[in-house]
């Protein structure tokens, strides 16, 4: 039996306008979705071409969840997105070429070749780079919220985690501390139904991850993670509630991980029907249909956005490929921070 609220799908343009999105925003969301998927598709190709060392992960199927939440954040809000949340980096404005440079281990990636994959973030854009250990960034997100609370700033922190990572102690400590102190933090669960090869019933035995929220003393809501507008609406509600002192919310975005855990994994353990069913609910396709049915989205507009994104990505790959590999002399740079590292807007 579910404890959490189960969110309704989004209806008409009128409803969407009510929660503050105008047509420009709606087209922007489409652009973000396309860019997000495009980056990961291109990355996948680059990987196959041998241009990306190590492994390679994507968030296929999770684009709407990531973009929906990120577009609900305010400019001064901060977040700790994970490995399925490329869309968050895109919405916050990371330049795609730097992401490709990151993938390829180049000097101009946000981590300068020190880390790989989507283990990166630009903290000037309000994002904090993830670590592999899941969900170690949740206590960090809570700490951001604590800073906002101490300074009485109307800012919100967003912390992401997967349904698999919900099993770890860090999830619990973070949510509990946030609850006790009613901190302005929103927990977003990317529930893509698999943790590597592990299905949800081996990760948790309640109906929804969001059912946990109530047992911490805050609200939980489950939303269709393929419905970018529904995600946006629920994230917005949660973020604004947090901003106004209403404490944390857990927003669970239900999707399916549409590929293997990483490139090497063919996901043989996922039932075919599951993929088939969820393929019908492709977040980009669903949103495109919605735009056409509700917002007079025209062929011209679509072509224009597609062309724009295509060019963006082509240029990005080219520019990234021109970025050099890091100099060996940089190997020990930054093991320790220097006082100048504190000379950033957020550190003050």
């Amino acid at each position, binding site marked *: 039996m579910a404890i959490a609220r189960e969110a309704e799908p989004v209806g008409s343009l009128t409803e969407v306008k009510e929660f503050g999105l105008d047509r420009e925003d709606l087209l922007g969301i489409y652009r973000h979705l396309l860019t997000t998927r495009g980056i990961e598709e291109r990355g996948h190709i680059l990987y196959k071409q041998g241009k990306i*060392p*190590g*492994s390679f992960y994507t968030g296929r199927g999770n684009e709407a969840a990531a973009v929906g939440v990120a577009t609900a954040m305010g400019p001064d809000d901060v977040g700790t997105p994970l490995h399925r949340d490329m869309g968050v980096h895109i919405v916050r404005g990371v330049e795609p070429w730097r992401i490709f440079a990151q993938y390829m*281990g*180049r000097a101009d990636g946000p*981590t300068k*070749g*020190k*880390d*790989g*994959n989507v*283990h990166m973030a630009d903290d000037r854009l309000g994002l904090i780079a993830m*670590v*592999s*250990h*899941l969900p170690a960034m949740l206590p960090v997100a809570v700490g951001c919220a604590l800073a906002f609370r101490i300074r009485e700033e109307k800012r919100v922190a967003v912390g992401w985690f997967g349904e*698999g*990572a*919900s*099993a*770890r*102690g860090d999830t619990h400590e973070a949510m509990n501390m946030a609850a006790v102190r009613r901190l302005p933090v929103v927990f977003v669960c990317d529930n893509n139904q698999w*943790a*590597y*090869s*592990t299905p949800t019933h*081996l*990760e*948790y035995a309640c109906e929804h991850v969001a059912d946990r929220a109530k047992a911490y003393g805050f609200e939980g809501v489950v939303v269709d993670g393929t419905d970018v507008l529904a995600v946006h609406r629920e994230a917005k509600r949660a973020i604004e509630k947090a901003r106004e002192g209403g404490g944390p919310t857990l927003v669970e975005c239900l999707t399916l991980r549409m590929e293997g855990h990483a490139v090497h994994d063919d996901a043989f*353990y996922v039932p075919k029907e599951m993929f088939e069913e969820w393929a019908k609910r492709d977040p980009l396709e669903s949103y495109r249909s919605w735009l056409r049915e509700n917002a007079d989205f025209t062929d011209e507009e679509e072509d224009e956005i597609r062309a724009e994104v295509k060019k963006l990505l082509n240029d990005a790959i080219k520019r990234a490929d021109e970025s050099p*590999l*890091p*100099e*060996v002399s*940089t*190997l*020990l740079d930054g*093991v320790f921070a220097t006082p100048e590292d504190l000379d950033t807007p957020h550190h003050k």
Partner: protein
Amino acid sequence: MAEKTYLQAISDGLRQEMRRDKRVYVIGEDVGVYGGAFKVTHGFQEEFGPWRVIDAPLSETAIVGSCTGAAIMGMRPVAEMQFADFVSCAWDHLVTVAAKQRYRAGTAVPIVVRCPSGGGFSGGPFHSQNPESSFAHIPGLKVVCPATPEDAKGLLVTAIEDPNPVLYFEHKHLYRRIKADVPEDRYATPFGEARIHREGDDVTVVTWGAMVYTAAEAADKVESEGISTEIVDLRTIVPWDRKAVLASVEKTSKVIVLHEDTHTGGFGAEIAATIAEEAFEHLDAPVKRITAPDSPVPFSPPLEKAFIPQVEDVVAGLQEVAGY
């Protein structure tokens, strides 16, 4: 005897133990249906069922902590960390409960934690670490780092038999790269007995894990220059074979300690300090340490290569020490 990869040797050794002893079970993330991230337990769940090959939730503390409880109840658990790096999430349990329970309360904790460790394939800061030194400092834990397929199997058997918590570091870079003959029968390779990987007279290299091969390549290279290198593969770090190391040092009078983990406070420091203390009169040159530098493991290939000790680094070290 059949030729096997290092990975196959681990897998076969584990399967053999599970067939032999019903108390042995495996628990970890994706070890069942998927057969483990590196496929060490491929096919195990079909053979042993879901209660002896347990797909656990993503919770290292519960995985390792539950092993302790089950072990005290008479089972012989083998936990798999998906990568050695994630054992940091079970650190508190291992050092607080598992390591101290026998000393404090008389209760033995016979568990094995398998940790796929090491770098060399752009795994980045969280899929490349070698955390053996951290555990070696904690009294009550045993620490194993096999370098060869034969040892990988034999030390795993000993680890499962051992009445203590054992951290078993299997080096990912050896998994499929290293092949050698492995006896089919069951055998237990004793802890605390080093293996002379190569005999030599001029310089001793004390090492373990993947670095054994790096040392061997370097030894080949300097041989033509007339430097004869003895390579001591420790096999286990706790306990470690001081006797073998000191005997080799007595013979060569010159020694390099080589490891893939970072420098400061790495286990190489313990070995170097011990040699300096106990073989003081025998040393003709300072004990040299060749290790990774003090930084996280970088992702990008040129950086990672500069980070992990390379054959050239060992060659240079051998030349330097031999020429001292």
